[in-house]
């Protein structure tokens, strides 16, 4: 069972780059890493997903080192609207046991 660990909270000023790291020491070969954003009173919203190295989309980048025991979500130039809780999810993709373990979430507060 892949277990994830991430910081409970982070603060950042507007315009700065924010990096949130998730540890997943026992990630398996076929596991993917996915990050979600959650605003109050809303469901988690998909941000980005990756398997190895680096993935970039229009809102974020995801860095995964070679050993895959951690991953870092990078949010460029955050704004007040990026204040939310960010969750890291590791899931197994393949036949057999199918585990879905969310991290406990990192509450990001963006300060003007």
């Amino acid at each position, binding site marked *: 069972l892949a277990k994830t660990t991430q910081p409970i909270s982070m603060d950042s000023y507007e315009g700065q780059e924010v990096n949130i790291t998730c540890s997943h020491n026992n990630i398996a070969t076929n596991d993917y890493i996915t990050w979600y954003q959650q605003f109050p009173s*809303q*469901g988690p919203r998909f941000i980005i997903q990756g398997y190895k190295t680096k993935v970039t989309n229009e809102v974020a980048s995801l860095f995964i080192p070679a050993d895959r025991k951690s991953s870092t979500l990078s949010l460029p130039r955050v704004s007040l609207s990026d204040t939310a809780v960010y969750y890291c999810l590791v*899931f197994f*993709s393949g036949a057999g046991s*199918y585990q879905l373990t969310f991290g*406990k979430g990192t509450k990001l507060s963006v300060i003007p």
Partner: protein
Amino acid sequence: DTAVSQTPKYLVTQMGNDKSIKCEQNLGHDTMYWYKQDSKKFLKIMFSYNNKELIINETVPNRFSPKSPDKAHLNLHINSLELGDSAVYFCASSQYGNTIYFGEGSWLTVV
């Protein structure tokens, strides 16, 4: 158009009652889930169905019974509600092994 929709959004009920939360997805996915988010904001999976077959059944009281009439629907029925059942319940769906998409949540308050 809402991809994963669940009803009701808010539900207040008394202890001992039986209630259901319905979920529908129009994404054509073959897998659906129920998650529970407690007051500490931890997201824990409860159940998962793939093509109407139960594939994940975490340690959940048997008062909770999921039902999947077809691939697009996964309902959650809760018997004999207890105070500790108060939480936000999220329905979600995915194509098996791929990105999971969540509904907006159902806020259950047991009084």
